[in-house]
């Protein structure tokens, strides 16, 4: 433990060098900028920067990459909140309540709780990275396909929180998403499904294309269609621009819970950032004292997922640094960054280059602080976006969404999909179907399917494997309880009512 402190102190000294501070600042700035653009993620940015940075010293450029990573995670939430356009799939859960808050004139507090929540979660998770990495990675490696499948079951059960009022409509949306998830090459047999001979469809439906199409394009169409009805009044700011005491009181617990979801799941090799954000969203929705506000802009629904998504970014670095396991696209690019300097992340890196590893961890703290400094003053500027007249604002959103999609995948098919999803989003809004479950189905469906089939292939077809692993058995139990509890409670309620 003392060693860790000494090493961290040394790392701080490395990261605090003026040049490294500058790299961290550039990284955070670039990351925020690309996070804002839908489609252009941190992975792409790091990939494009790699050839530029190979002349820099390894410490500096890795610190910059870490800044991009954290910045990207944060930047995606800004557009999610303000214009309902999640920059990354991980900020989708943020858009659900965040955009409602922004429309109600509470964009300032929404952005602030997401900035501060990101900072709190990022800091706690980075502490976790420094102290728990070796222990956590042991747990992560033992997490097998059957355990992932069980985790997906928990996620599926909790998804109902995003269903809105009608379970039938929610399930319909979810199954549309699950069907979209089947499109493309089947990961286990290599056969094409639902691709209709279009080569671009062989890779499946891109989550960001679906999310941007449904959320941003669909909304723009919907608003346009309602212009002759009552004009929806957007108020940029109502009440305080900053978080009130009440906002703080309602935010701090979701921040912490979000971190608890994000960090360990982020550390799992196939965990990702989306699942913890959904889990956090549904947890907050269940625990809140203001259930009536959910769906209309509840601050808990922003604070939790935002914390979860930043914590998962730190979690991803656990397997990267300790095992050399890149578990996200950005981590894979950072691994390429390490290799460009002849460094091999993995069990030996901590021993061979402690200065670099601890410098990187220390710079994560600094990047976090910088994100806060960079973003809080911008909140006032960002919310003014909402004062733009509606036709201009939505036209801008359409341009923005199209640009991001083209930048990520320059193809006509991709753009047609964006347009088709936009129309679908419009129709779903028009007929009152919730949108989030579609995206959730697309994300969770393929993971659940391939992990289950993998587990069965490994066990030679024996389904008992799902119960033999203690982890998977526990998770399945939780899923079962979560599924049955509402019914049981309802039954108990009726029982009590009868007694009276």
């Amino acid at each position, binding site marked *: 433990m003392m060693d860790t402190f000494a090493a961290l102190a040394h790392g701080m000294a490395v990261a605090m060098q003026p040049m490294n501070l500058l790299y961290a600042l550039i990284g955070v700035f670039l990351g925020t900028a690309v996070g804002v653009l839908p489609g252009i993620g941190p*992975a*792409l940015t*790091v*990939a*494009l920067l*790699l*050839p530029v940075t*190979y002349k820099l010293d390894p410490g500096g450029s890795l610190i910059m990459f870490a800044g991009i990573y954290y910045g990207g995670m944060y930047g995606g939430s800004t557009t999610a909140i303000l214009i309902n356009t999640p920059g990354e799939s991980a900020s989708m859960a943020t858009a659900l309540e965040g955009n409602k808050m922004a429309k109600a004139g509470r964009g300032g507090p929404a952005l602030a709780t997401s900035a501060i929540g990101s900072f709190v979660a990022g800091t706690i998770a980075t502490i976790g990275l420094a102290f728990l990495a070796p222990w956590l990675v042991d747990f*992560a*490696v*033992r*997490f*097998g*396909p059957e355990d992932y499948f069980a985790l997906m079951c928990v996620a599926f059960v909790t998804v109902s929180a995003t269903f809105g009022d009608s379970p039938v409509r929610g399930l319909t949306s979810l199954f549309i998403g699950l069907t979209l998830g089947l499109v493309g*090459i*089947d*990961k*286990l*047999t*290599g*056969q*094409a499904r639902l691709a209709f001979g279009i*080569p*671009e469809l*062989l*890779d499946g439906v891109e989550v960001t294309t679906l999310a941007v199409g449904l959320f941003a394009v669909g909304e723009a169409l919907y608003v346009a269609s309602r212009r002759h009805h009552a004009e929806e009044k957007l108020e940029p700011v109502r009440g305080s621009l900053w978080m009130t005491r009440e906002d703080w009181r309602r935010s701090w617990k979701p921040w912490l819970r979000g971190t608890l979801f994000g960090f360990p799941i982020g550390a799992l*090799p*196939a965990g990702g950032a989306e699942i913890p954000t959904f889990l956090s969203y549904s947890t907050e929705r269940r625990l809140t004292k203001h259930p009536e506000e959910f769906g209309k802009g509840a601050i808990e629904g922003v604070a939790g997922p935002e914390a979860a998504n930043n914590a998962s970014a730190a979690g991803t670095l656990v*397997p990267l640094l300790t*095992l*050399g*396991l*890149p*578990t996200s*696209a950005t*981590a*894979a*690019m950072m691994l*390429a960054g390490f*290799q*460009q*300097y*002849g460094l*091999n*992340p*993995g*069990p*030996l*890196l901590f021993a061979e280059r402690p200065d670099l590893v601890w410098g990187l961890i220390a710079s994560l703290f600094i990047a976090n602080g910088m994100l806060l400094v960079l973003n809080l003053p911008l909140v006032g500027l960002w919310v003014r976006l909402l004062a733009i007249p509606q036709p201009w604002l939505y036209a801008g959103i359409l341009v923005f969404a199209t640009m991001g999609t083209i930048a990520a*995948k*320059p*193809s006509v098919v991709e753009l047609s999909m964006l347009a088709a999803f936009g129309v679908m989003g419009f129709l779903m809004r028009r007929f009152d179907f919730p949108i989030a479950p579609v995206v959730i189905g697309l994300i969770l469906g393929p993971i659940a399917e391939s992990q289950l089939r*993998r587990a069965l*292939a*490994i066990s*030679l077809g024996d389904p008992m494997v799902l119960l033999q692993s203690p982890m998977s058995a526990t998770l399945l139990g939780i899923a079962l309880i979560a599924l049955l509890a509402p019914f049981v409670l309802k039954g108990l309620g009726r029982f009590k009512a009868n007694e009276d």
Partner: protein
Amino acid sequence: MISSRMRLFGAVVALLLGASGPAAAQQLELKLMAPAAPGGGWDQTARSMQQALVASGVARSVQVTNVPGAGGSVGIAQFVNSAKGDGNQMMVNGFVMVGALAMNKSPVTLDQVTPIARLTEEIQVIVVPANSPLKTAQDLAAAVKADIAKVTFAGGSAGGVDHVMAALFAGTVGADAKKINYIPFSGGGESLAAILGGKVTAGISGLSEYEGQIKAGKLRALGVTSAQRLPGVDIPTFKEQGIDLVLANWRSVVAPPGITPEQRKVLSDAVEKMVKSDAWKEILKQKGWDDAYLGGDAFADFLKKEIVRVTDVLKSVGLVKS
């Protein structure tokens, strides 16, 4: 106002003159397609070529474009259709594309492009967790022969180089390759976790991906697929253990169909010059790639043979319907 416009005009003229000067005319302006998203192996190869071609003065400018999708199927279709006869374009490709095209029933095939050169290769390795009872490649061969369904292999995507190698291994040691229990994972990260966690019998991947774990003693390498022992790598080849399995995950560069023999020669010469440059050697060292330069007709021959071999293997495991 007028004078500033005049000056601007003069500058533009000077630029144009400079660009079309005699020295520049001999230099190439190339377009290089990476049929994959930024960051992957093909993209890195393309961007490294860009760097080396420009740094060594072979080309004046190289523009890299990414056309991702379906293991290169989308990229090659666009390349063959839109770059036909253009002697200033090239595309990076590799082993994985051979299998992807066959599996996706792509209407465009590698027979249509003009082969230029093989550039690099990566040797493959089979590993087991450190506590596995299997100590040598022969132990694994015995296990495969005893009951092939019980031996689970973890590796990359279905039909990729790892999958082909698992089938080749089973076939070479005399088991029925059709029955291999191959479990594809997306990316080396996930499969590595499954191997370290003891969920599968063995793992297959490029050597560099597992090298750190092998050195740290967490994984045991049973064999590598090179023909001879690799310098500085203390792992026996399959060949010296009596299993005739030689395979490499190669990457190459090709030109569009319909170019003239002169145009082909210009591109081949440019690539050959690049391969010999210090800039390229420096990049190979940095990235840990093995130089596997093979140019001209020798490469065309090699490519044909690999297409036959890979397609046969994929048919034998049922991924490609014959």
